[in-house]
């Protein structure tokens, strides 16, 4: 706190806290004794609703000691835990270290469960209902935000439930993508292709590769300009998993379908990134998650008990 406010506010907060506690004690002391009119029948002398009288019954004394105990407790608490401005407390407790401790404890507790999965190949793990239930929860918590809860993605976010893979669909490649993340870069290619008319022609050629509706005349003209794209997407436009270059000859359109979408991406380029999950997920969790994702589009091997 004092990093940006100086020491004043720390002292101010600590002062209010301590003054409040001392104030409680003083209040208790001052109100524990009271002047009452003495009556012979142990009533306070108040009468209302004709005949209701108030008895003068003091509270039990242990009740007062409970108040004192709470004050002592609060002081001990403030010594042990951070509560007085920037003072860290004798136990050196912090919510961050507590969280990390809990994550560590949970991972240790789950280690034997995960051990039975890491010992097996991903193709087998994908056939294990228990592993898939765990994988589904991991997916929902870590992946569904981008790839959708049915893993079918949306514009700009790859569909993980089809057979089409930018970086390869083997369990090892999937695990690699999860672990280190991926960056897909399509540079702006308008200058390399030519004028805006050439870009349009190339777009129609690309559409023709997958037999999508296109202008065949423009496609003919665009074919000769496709050379600039072939370096990454291959001469036949079937892409290159090693570079993460998409296959243009199928009908998967990550960044939108149709002439305008293709013109846009050729003109402006696009950098797409999948963040690395290493550090957030353990290796065992990544193994189960990769098996789950692989299982979405592949028929898993029969799990051996």
């Amino acid at each position, binding site marked *: 706190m004092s990093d940006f406010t100086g020491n004043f506010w720390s002292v101010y907060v600590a002062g209010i806290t301590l003054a409040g506690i001392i104030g409680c004690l003083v209040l208790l002391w001052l*109100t*524990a*004794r*009271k*002047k*009452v*009119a*003495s*009556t*012979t*029948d142990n*009533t306070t*002398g108040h*009468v209302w609703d*004709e*005949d209701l*009288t108030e*008895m*003068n019954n*003091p*509270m*039990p*004394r*242990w*009740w*007062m000691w409970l108040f004192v105990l709470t004050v002592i407790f609060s002081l001990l608490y403030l010594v042990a835990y951070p509560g007085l401005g920037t003072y860290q407390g004798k136990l050196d407790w912090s919510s961050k270290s507590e969280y990390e401790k809990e994550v560590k404890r949970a991972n240790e507790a789950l280690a034997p469960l995960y051990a039975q999965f890491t010992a097996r190949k991903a193709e087998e793990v994908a056939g294990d209902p228990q592993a898939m239930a765990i994988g589904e929860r991991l997916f*929902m918590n870590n992946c*569904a*935000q*981008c*790839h*959708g*809860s*049915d893993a*079918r*993605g*949306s*514009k700009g*976010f790859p569909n993980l439930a089809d057979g089409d893979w930018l970086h390869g669909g083997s369990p090892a490649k999937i695990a690699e993508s999860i672990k280190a993340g991926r960056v897909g870069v399509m540079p702006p290619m308008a200058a390399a292709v030519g004028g805006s008319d050439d870009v349009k022609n190339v777009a129609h050629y690309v559409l023709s590769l997958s037999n999508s509706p296109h202008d065949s005349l423009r496609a003919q003209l665009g074919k000769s300009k496709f050379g600039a794209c072939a370096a990454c997407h291959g001469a036949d436009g079937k892409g290159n998993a090693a570079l993460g270059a998409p296959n243009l000859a199928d*009908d998967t359109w990550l960044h939108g*379908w149709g002439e305008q979408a293709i013109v846009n991406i050729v003109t402006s380029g696009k950098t797409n990134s999948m963040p690395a999950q290493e550090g957030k997920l353990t290796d065992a969790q990544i193994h189960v998650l990769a098996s789950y994702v692989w299982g979405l589009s592949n028929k898993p091997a029969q799990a051996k008990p």
Partner: protein
Amino acid sequence: MSQKVIPIQPIPPSGEPPQTQSLYEAQKKIYPRSVSGLFARWRWVFVWLTQLVFYGLPWLPWATEAGARQAVLFDLAARRFYLFGYVLYPQDFIYLTALLVISALSLFLFTAVAGRLWCGFTCPQTVYTEIFLWIERKVEGDRQRRMKLDAGGFSAAKLGKKSLKHFLWIALALWTGFTFVGYFTPVRELGSEMLAGRMGSWEVFWVLFYGFATYGNAGFLREQVCKYMCPYARFQAAMFDKDTLIVSYDAGRGEPRGSRGRQADFAAQGLGSCVDCTLCVQVCPTGIDIRQGLQYECISCAACVDVCDSVMDKMNYPRGLIRFTTQNALNGQGAGRDVLRTILRPRVLVYTTILAALSLGLAIHLATRTPLKVDVIRDRAALSRIVAGGKLENVYRLQLMNATEETQHYRIGAEGLAGLELASDGEVSIGPAEARWVAVRVQIPYGSAAPGSHTIHFTVESRGGDAHVREKSVFLVPR
């Protein structure tokens, strides 16, 4: 001892100068004398009834298709509440709400008619105090002997008696704590875990905590809970009126009180029926003198009624100097015979009507309950997308909650837009008492609906057809 005291009379301050006095005073220990009689027997009936239910219920098995389970189990970890034939989800908390409202109204009704009978006969505080007092009496003897024992100095006999008493108290308290935890975690497993010495730390905590609370409340705090902590004691007066049954001393008959010979003609001595034996004060568990009139500490346990009746019998006087009666009857209005007028008051009728309506509503709702719950949540990532075949697709997550204990096969459908159809598998099997999220994709032909949000409905039907749920959601069409 013919001092004249008239109950419930405004007494002005004596005019002496005010004195300084502590607001906190060391508590005087109350040694209730044991009592026998009609109401004492009733109290023991209720002690047995309530404790048979409390200690016995967790051990009751319930047969299901998947095997026997505990009939009443509130499985907090799995968030399933098993009540005999019912499997309840946290979403069913409305039933608990209804139950609590019904309980509160029953208490109001009961209090309006018969005062604090709850306090004197079935309140756990009273019941456990009664059991603990019984143990204390068995070990240390009745009132006089207990007072003598506490007043006397240290001796081996005292140590032995006190140790035995606390040992029995703690054993019973721990068993109570164990039973309490048995409602939330299967009690038989808990028992075998305890015998093997590997109970979970939270279970140990709650057994000890609940045990400690029982030991402290029933062994030490006793009447102080009723006097200083119980909120009901504070507002029950709002439900009282002059036709409410209260434990009351008939001052008109009893005063002036005074001791006399058994054969003496007390009327000739100018005395009332009260022999001033103070037994009614000695038996009172909250330490009040009922002859001073109705006080908020009175829990209507009727111990004073029992003991006074026994004295009246000995004296050959008619019973009922202290009795359950109403203020109006005491004042000679209705003379206590007009029971109908006592019961059929607007307050009682209103409570009864609301209570009956609520109970009936709850019963009907429970009986016609659909054993399936569905929550629909739109996918949070993709609002809407175009997929192969020129279709517009929305993704939803449906949580299907099977509230039966058999595996159920459900068919999911969607309706509400032209051409609306499910793209994913609409057949789902859900295990007994299982809840599962299912991703559902719904499509319409591209351009078949105007841009914007459209209301659609999901239908989920069990294969047997005994469960049918319709849930609303929206389908988004982008511009």
